[in-house]
C-alpha cells in the first residue's frame, strides 16, 4: 500500500470482509477510496454484493408445517411423562392430566 491507496489486489483481498461488514472502519475507508477511483474493482464489488442479495432473495423462507409446533408439544409431553415415570427426583407438576393417566 502506497500513500494510503490500496492496490487492486489488496482491495480484492478485502472483498468478502468488506461486503460482510467485517472490516474495521479504517480498512473499510481504504476500500471505499479505491473503489472510487477504480471502475473494475467497483464493478466486481457491485456484482458480488448483488449476487449475495440475489441468493438471499432466492432462498426466501418456506413456512414451517402448520402442525410442527403441535408435534413438538406432543413429543415434549411424552418426554416429560417418560422422565416422570422413571422416577425423576422432581417430576414437573401436572404432566398427567386428571383422568388421563398412563393407560
Amino acid at each position: 500500500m502506497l500513500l494510503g491507496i490500496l492496490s487492486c489486489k489488496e482491495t480484492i483481498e478485502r472483498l468478502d470482509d468488506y461486503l460482510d461488514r467485517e472490516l474495521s472502519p479504517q480498512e473499510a475507508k481504504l476500500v471505499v477510496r479505491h473503489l472510487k477511483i477504480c471502475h473494475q474493482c467497483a464493478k466486481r464489488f457491485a456484482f458480488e454484493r448483488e449476487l449475495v442479495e440475489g441468493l438471499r432473495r432466492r432462498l426466501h423462507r418456506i413456512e414451517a408445517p402448520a402442525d410442527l409446533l403441535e408435534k413438538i408439544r406432543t413429543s415434549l409431553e411424552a418426554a416429560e411423562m417418560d422422565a416422570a415415570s422413571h422416577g425423576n427426583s422432581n417430576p414437573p407438576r401436572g404432566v398427567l392430566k386428571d383422568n388421563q393417566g398412563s393407560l
Partner: protein
Amino acid sequence: MPDSPRAAQFETLLAPILGSAYGVALRLTGNRDDAQDLVQDAALRAFAAFETFEPQTHFKAWFLRVLVNCHLNRARSASRRPQTVALDDGEDALLFEAARREGLMARGVDPADALLARFDADLVAVALSDLPNDFRVVATLFLLEEMSYEEIALIVECPVGTVRSRLHRGRKLLQKALWELARERGLVGKP
C-alpha cells in the same frame, strides 16, 4: 398449552423462532421431511437441556446451536457420502467472469441479476445443500439468517477466524456448484 410450566415456558420461547429454525433445517438437510425431523429432534434435546439456557440470553441462537449440533451429529453418523468431493476451490470471481462471458456486462444491466434470472427456482437451494457440511452450515446461517461472523461462531462453536475462512471458501464453492448445476441443466453457456 402444554401441561407443565417448564414445557409451557419452553414452547413460548420456541414458537416465535420456529419458522427460522425450520428454514435453517430445510437448507441444511435439503428436504422437508428431514427438516421437520431435525427440528423435532433439536426441540427434544433442547428441552432436555433447558436448564442450561440462561434466560437473559438469546434463545434463538441457543436453539440454533442445538439444531446445528444435531445436524452435524446425524451427518457424521450417516456419512452417506464422503464429503471430499468438489473441495477443490473454484477460481476467484468464477461467476463474475461467467457473467462477462455470457455477455451480461452491458450498460444498464445488472449482471448479477441477469445471471440469477437464468437459474431455476430450486437451483440455489440444491447448490447450497450440495456443499460439504461445514461450509453449508456457515453459509446457511449467513445467507438465511444474515448473521455476523461472530454470531455464527457462537452457534457452530468455533473461532471467528474459522468462520471467516469457511465462509470465504464456501462462497467460492457455492459459486462453483451453482455454475456447474446451471450448466448441467442447460441453463447457461456452452463450454
